[in-house]
């Protein structure tokens, strides 16, 4: 009887334990993630400008109407964001997968090679900008030394030339972004059962066939998740583009979040900024769900 009562008490305590354990995390996220998201929804329906407090009040859908019908910069920033995300994620995926496959092999110096090729991932966007500003500069950059060797013409300034500024920014972000893909894919590659490869080899499958029929299917969910996360992060990329191009020239490299930051920080227009934020949030959610559906994420497990 005593033992039974004790066990019962113990189980009851156990059932409360997990909630106590996650409580701090839940509370922190409610206060500083969920509440802010809710207040963005609220602000988007308000006129709220810090510099013009007399305008404060309910706005209905005014902010959204202005965004959709009366703001070419909104559409322009959205277009650039799409182009940026598409190019970055596509290239990062291809290079990241190749890199992961290479450093998954066994070879002398693998540990050092991994630490080195992954290291840019630890670096901030601002620092990436700093480094590439040095490299791209026409008088002190790489191109000058290549020109000294007769390999290039003098005077190339990729960041100052509207024709090349996009590629220049893409390359800098690739430098930092490829390792992320490689790390995620490498983690999953290590879980591919080795005997599958051996069985396939015995059956006479070549390297390419083994890759297509064993490796790729195994990596599928990770690829879907990694491309999605990276797309969200590139959509929201602020630190690199803000410092590299400042969104210019003529707002040509302004992403939606950069536009939001400018609206909030320069015009202090919290109502309109929140409406822009909502637009970004809706677009991200819509495409994320669509992508997970189309990719049939988790279908195999």
């Amino acid at each position, binding site marked *: 009887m005593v033992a039974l009562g004790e066990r019962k008490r113990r189980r009851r305590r*156990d059932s409360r*334990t*997990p909630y106590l*354990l*996650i409580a*701090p*995390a839940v509370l*922190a*996220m409610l206060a*500083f*993630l969920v*509440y802010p*998201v809710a207040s963005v929804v609220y602000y988007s329906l308000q006129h709220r400008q810090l510099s013009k407090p007399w305008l404060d009040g309910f706005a209905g859908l005014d902010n959204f109407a202005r965004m959709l019908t009366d703001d070419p910069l909104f559409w322009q920033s959205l277009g650039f964001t799409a182009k940026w995300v598409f190019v970055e994620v596509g290239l990062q995926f291809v*290079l990241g997968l190749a890199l992961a496959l290479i*450093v998954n*092999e066994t*070879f002398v110096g693998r540990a050092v*090679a*991994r*630490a*080195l*090729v*992954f*290291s840019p991932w*630890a*670096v*901030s*966007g*601002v*620092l990436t*900008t*700093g*480094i590439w500003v*040095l*490299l791209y500069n026409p008088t*002190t950059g*790489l191109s000058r030394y290549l020109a000294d060797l007769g390999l290039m013409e003098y005077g190339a300034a990729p960041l100052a030339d509207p024709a090349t500024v996009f590629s220049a920014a893409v390359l800098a972000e690739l430098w930092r972004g490829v390792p992320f893909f490689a790390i*995620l894919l*490498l*983690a*999953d590659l*290590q879980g591919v059962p080795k005997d599958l490869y051996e069985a396939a080899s015995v059956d006479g499958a070549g390297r390419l066939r083994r890759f297509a029929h064993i490796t790729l299917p195994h990596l599928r969910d990770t690829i879907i998740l990694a491309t999605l*996360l990276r797309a969200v992060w590139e959509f*929201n990329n*602020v*630190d690199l583009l*803000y*410092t590299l191009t400042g969104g210019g020239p003529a707002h040509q490299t302004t992403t939606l*979040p*950069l536009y*939001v930051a400018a609206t*909030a*920080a320069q015009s202090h227009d*919290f109502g309109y900024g*929140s409406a822009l934020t909502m637009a*970004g*949030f809706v677009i*991200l959610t819509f495409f994320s769900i669509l992508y997970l559906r189309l990719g049939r994420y*988790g279908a195999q*497990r």
Partner: protein
Amino acid sequence: MSTTEAAPPVVAPPKAPPVRKKRPRWEIYVPLGLYLLFTLVPFYWMVVFAVRPRGSSSLLPWPVSLENFETVWNGMGFGVFFQNSFLVGVASLVATTAIALPGGYALARFRFRGRRVFLIALLCSQFIPGAMMLIPLFEIFRTLGLVNSLSSLVIAETVFQLPLSLVLISGFIASIPVELEEAAQADGCTRLRGFLLVVLPLLRPGLVAVGSFAFIHSWNNFLFALMFISDQDKFTVPVGLAFTLGEFSVDFGALAAGGVVAALPVVLVFAVVQRYLVQGLSAGAVKG
């Protein structure tokens, strides 16, 4: 038999079978070499520009001169920025780990109502863009009187780092056999004692990884620091670097030295812990 001795090193990485190949594997070394070049040339460039004397255009980092560091560290205030970044980084590391450790344990060891919803919420939180949270977070910190204080950065960093930390820690804990804990409890340990004596020592690499990523993340964050901080003596390293880019773009030596100051701590930390990251992700984070 004491419980600490009962714990075998279960999270030790599996040893790969030795490969005996005399032939150099060009299909690995050639592409890897090219990629290493792409990775290392920019780092090298920064270091050379940082350490060479003024007026030199040599591409060899010799002789080493520290005058650029002198300029940025004392003249441009990077010493103070470094201290601020370090404080914010360590504080978010401690806060993130302290909150994520019990939470991760609950996710790994308990099946409770709402667990799935919580996990989905963690995934969804990754779709919440930092830039889009600026306006409401600014308002909250203004209400709390925390605008222009380093605490605002610690709070924002901790909350944004929590979801990934929870998933990583619960992955690490899940990879530790639950039988070890049960054995400890059978020997008369309470759950807490069992956790402290059995799980925690085995979790050390995981904690190092999660703490390091919290530190790296907050060391690198630019946007929050740019928006919430206005006093120059409270700037963090990335904000200081951004100002260097804007105002002193002619002084490449100073820019490069500032870059080295910004990169050194995180790259060192990352080089040490990157293998734990791969392990932690394999342990179940990606699989959800």
